[in-house]
Each structure stands twice: as structure tokens, then as C-alpha cells.
């Protein structure tokens, strides 16, 4: 998919992006303890934490950039690289593990070269793991773009993922 933009369009994109970041920071200014909440909002908006956004956060919230970076790398909710178009979350809770969740990870690595936390080359899928979604009766559970799939085995996973472009 090729994206062709001209200079005014690019500028407009950058402006709207900076506006968005500014407005997100607005509600948290002077409340340094809400740094994690702010980062979660930015992550939700852009699907990752852009470097420039973090620099702005450090400036406006008067927190050292190194500390913002520390927080951004400590918690699993944040990614510094853009995520893929579709988020595949595999449950690695004990019940799912005991029912063979590891084989799903193996298959994803084999077929898509995908490791937990990583994104496929073509930005199609991002793989995350989570420890227990609480649907242990239906394990192994895989969530794709918010949709819960139950009793997933490598075969079924193939069929499910094929429908996501």
C-alpha cells in the first residue's frame, strides 16, 4: 500500500499530530504523578509512544527525559515502536499453558517470524502475551483486535489469522 503525500499534506499531518499531543498533555500538566496515565493516553492514541511526544511530555511536565524514558521502557503497556495493524494477544496463563498455549507461540514464530512483543515485517501483526485473561474454561485463548477466540490450536489459529489483512 503506497502512501503518496505532498508537502502541505505532510505539514498538516505533523501539525495535527503536535496538536493532539499538546491536548493530551494539557489535562495532566502540574500532576507529575499521573505520568503513567498520560503515557497510556498517548499509547492509545498513536498505537505507540513517538519519540517527539515523549520529549514534549518531559518538557511540559517538567520531568527529566531520562525518567520518562525509564517509565516508558519499564511497563509492558508501552511500545516505542509502532504496532502492527492487528494486535494478537496470546494468553499464557497457567491454565492456557497447561492446555498448550506454547504451541501457538511456536507456530507464530515459524509462520510469521513473530516473537512476543514483536511486529511482523509487513506491519500486519503485533504479538503480545498476557498472563491470564480469566477465561480459563475456554483455553487456550487468543484475542485478535479485541475479539476473543477460544480453544485455539495451531491449526485453528491459521484459519483465524488468514482473515486479517
Amino acid at each position: 500500500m503506497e502512501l503518496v503525500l505532498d508537502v502541505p499534506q505532510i505539514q498538516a499531518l505533523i501539525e495535527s499530530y503536535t496538536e493532539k499531543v499538546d491536548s493530551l498533555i494539557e489535562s495532566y500538566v502540574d500532576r507529575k504523578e499521573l505520568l503513567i496515565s498520560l503515557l497510556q493516553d498517548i499509547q492509545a492514541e498513536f498505537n505507540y509512544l513517538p519519540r517527539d511526544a515523549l520529549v514534549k511530555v518531559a518538557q511540559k511536565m517538567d520531568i527529566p527525559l531520562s525518567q520518562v524514558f525509564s517509565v516508558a521502557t519499564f511497563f509492558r503497556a508501552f511500545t516505542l515502536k509502532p504496532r502492527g495493524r492487528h494486535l494478537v494477544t496470546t494468553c499464557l496463563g497457567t491454565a492456557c499453558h497447561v492446555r498448550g498455549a506454547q504451541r501457538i507461540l511456536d507456530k507464530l514464530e515459524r509462520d510469521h517470524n513473530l516473537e512476543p512483543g514483536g511486529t511482523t515485517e509487513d506491519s500486519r501483526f503485533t504479538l503480545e502475551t498476557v498472563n491470564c485473561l480469566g477465561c480459563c474454561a475456554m483455553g487456550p485463548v487468543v484475542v485478535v483486535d479485541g475479539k476473543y477466540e477460544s480453544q485455539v490450536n495451531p491449526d485453528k489459529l491459521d484459519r483465524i489469522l488468514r482473515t486479517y489483512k
Partner: protein
Amino acid sequence: MAKVWINAQTQVEVADYPGMRAVHLTIDGKNVRALPGQTILEVVNSHPGIGNVPALCYHPAVKPYGACRLCTVEIEEGTRSRFVAACLYPIREGLVVKTDTERVRKLRQGILELLLARCPNVKMLQDLAKEYGVEQPRYALGDQACILCGLCVRACQEIIGRSAISLVNRGIYREIAAPFYAYELSEGCIGCGDCVYVCPTGAIYLGPDGKPVLPKVKIPYPEVEAMMREATAAASRR
């Protein structure tokens, strides 16, 4: 009057004067008198020869952190003993501290074996480990120099007030880094060299441009590698 040891060889009689707030505690069987508000390690350090407490992540100029766990000592609470970090535990009247029991030595041995396996080529660690009977760790050897004591980060934050570097990632992937792995440290760092000064292993050293060179990451980690690639690419573009 109380008999207290002021170092390993000297015992003196001291009078308790009115209004005195000294704390009396026992370290390895020796009575010691100290000012309140101190930690066990501070008392041990100010009484030469009393107590044996190694400490790698401690420096008097910054707040104690309690990360290396080598300063662990045994304290007695009634009939039971407990392991606590000497650099953080506040002294109190009647505290009984044992710094060199068999269990304490075994723990320090275990910690040093882990540290030596992580950084086998650091001379200071080799010497300290040898003191505790550790020469050949029973694990696969790494090749790091940084023990993640955090002294450099704390010095930069507390003494200099710049916070140019911080501890990033977590668990075994934890490391010292500048924001976005920009090793040039152009932002925030003023080139004072304090981090190099406090580093116990020499993992940080001053580069040719007067700015500190941070320990490189040895454990592979997909995102870290990508960031390193980006930082190097950005650096080479300039």
C-alpha cells in the same frame, strides 16, 4: 557508664550525659554507641574494624539503594533472626547485629557467584569473590562490566541534579542508558565525570570527547537492538 568499642582494638568507657540521644547496639558481640538516625552500615563504616559488611551499591554521597544485597546482615528479633540490608536498616536501641555468620557468608557467596558470572572480567569482583571462596561460577559466563548498582544514575540525579542517564527496561534486560540510547549524551550531560567517579567496576569511563561512555548491552533484545541501530544511524547521519 558504658563500655563501648570504637574500633576493633579499642574499648572505652563512656559516660551517658543528660540529654544524650545515643543508641546502644551490639555488632558481632561488641557494644557500640552511635548517633540515632543512622543505618547499620553507616555505624559499621564509622567504627573501623568492627563488623564485616561489603557493599557495592553504596556510596556515602547518595541515598542508599539496597540493590546489590551484599550488605545483608542477620539481626536478632527475640528467638528468631532475620536478614536485612545493612545500608537501609535503621538502628535502634538494643539492636543485635551479626555481620559474619555462616548463613550470611553463604548468601554473599551466592550473590558474588551470580555477579561474577555476569561480569567475569571485572578485577574488583574477582578479588571480592575470591575472599568468599568463589572463583569459578557454576553458570554460563557473560561479558558485562556493569553490575547495575545504579550509583551513576543516583549521582547524576541527586548530586548533579541533571538526571542525564537512567535505568531502563526491567529484569535481566535492565541497563543504564541515556534517553533513546543516544550514547552521545548530548542532552542533559554536562561532562562532569561524577558517574565515572562513583562507578565501582569501571563500567563507565570517560570517552575521548570528555563525555562518559556507557556500558554496552550484551544480552540480545529485539527492541534494544533496533534502538541501537537507530541511534547509530542517527549519529552517523550527523
